């Protein structure tokens, strides 16, 4: 266990041990609580307390912001008690541990990706639980975050006039992250990049999609201004992909 000084190994009855752990938890001495709960599981693995103690240990580690230990303990619970009524909580706790380690878009998004898969796991396995409702909200946010990362890299390349790299990054946002808050900006960036290349029809198409789906957005005003500046207009073109690709988005949004 994680306590620094290796405590002398003392065999103790389960009730007082568990109560001492619960008490440490209520007094917010989380590391101590985690150690004690794990001690309950170690000394009395077959008691009814052991199963509960395992989960409480995971929770204590989580409160102590020791995410790797919390995830490890929760996953051990899932492996040992797949059928238990609290397994949903264990999956949820794992997802929250990853979720709380999300860092800003400038850095490695590994924890965001892990949060995404863990939260989807919660929604898939326990669709109508409270946990799933909360997980869905957080899922939107993690997807939005990943889209933000694509935009960050897109802008990096656009700033250096490497429009090919930028355009492909912005396209990823439109195709993979259609429901995120970054779509309006990605469309506007496409208008900017296509015009810089001279591909005006593409710029007009992108502006049309932006106007069609996000008429009020500031980005659309910007695109419109850019186009009129080059005496162009957003393309009103029904046969194109605009309606097809975005009808699906419209249904979910409104």
């Amino acid at each position, binding site marked *: 266990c994680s306590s620094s000084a290796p405590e002398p190994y003392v065999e103790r009855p389960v009730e007082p041990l568990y109560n001492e752990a619960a008490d440490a938890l209520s007094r917010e001495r989380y590391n101590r609580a985690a150690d004690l709960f794990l001690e309950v599981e170690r000394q009395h693995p077959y008691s009814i307390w052991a199963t*509960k103690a395992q989960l*409480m240990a995971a*929770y204590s580690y*989580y409160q102590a*912001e020791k995410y790797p230990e919390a995830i490890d303990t929760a996953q051990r619970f899932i492996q040992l008690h797949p059928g238990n009524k*609290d397994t949903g*909580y264990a999956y*949820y706790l794992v997802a*929250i541990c990853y*979720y*709380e*380690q*999300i*860092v*800003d*878009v400038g*850095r490695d998004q590994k924890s965001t990706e892990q949060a995404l898969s863990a939260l989807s796991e919660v929604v898939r396995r326990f669709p109508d639980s409270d*946990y799933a*409702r*909360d*997980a869905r*909200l*957080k899922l939107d*946010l993690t997807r939005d*975050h990943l889209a933000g990362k694509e*935009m*960050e890299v897109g*802008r990096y390349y*656009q700033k*250096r*006039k*490497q*429009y*090919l790299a930028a*355009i*492909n990054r912005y*396209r990823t946002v439109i195709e993979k992250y259609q429901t995120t*808050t*970054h779509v309006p*900006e990605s469309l506007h*960036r*496409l208008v*900017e*990049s296509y015009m*810089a*290349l*001279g*591909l005006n029809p*593409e710029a007009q*198409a*992108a502006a049309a*999609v932006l106007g069609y789906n996000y008429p009020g957005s*500031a*980005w659309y005003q*910007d695109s419109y201004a*850019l186009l009129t500046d*080059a005496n162009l207009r957003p393309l009103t*073109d029904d046969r*194109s*992909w605009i309606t097809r690709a975005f009808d699906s988005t419209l249904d979910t949004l409104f």
Partner: protein
Amino acid sequence: CTPIVDDRGWRPDETAVSAIRPGVDNKESVARLLGTPSTVSNFDDRAWYYISARTERIAFQRDSVTNQAVLIVSFDAAGNVTEVSRLDQADGKEVAMNPDKTATLGNELTIWQQLFGNLGRFNAPSGGSTTAPMPGGTLPRN
């Protein structure tokens, strides 16, 4: 002083380009001749774009882009080549990037954290409940 030159994007292969015959070639043959396009038209899958550029970096100046070119291969609904056209740097327009950014969240790294390593707890106000409840506890309804 000699600039540091980097060739960006698609490497033009003029003999292959001249081998494309509108009306005869289709998407498969173009892909064989020119390779996968740099990018494709966004919204109607009717055009393939092969984009190339050369960036030069001289001493302290920003990278400057020279001989930026776009090769456009247009197709009809059946996927046959209708036209091969080109754009060069003159067709492009000097566009100023909009400085704003859509907001993103996530733990910003503060000096305190950089020195002492713990990244603290990321929680987006809009992202559902703030912290996980005790095992068996219920989630606040919001």
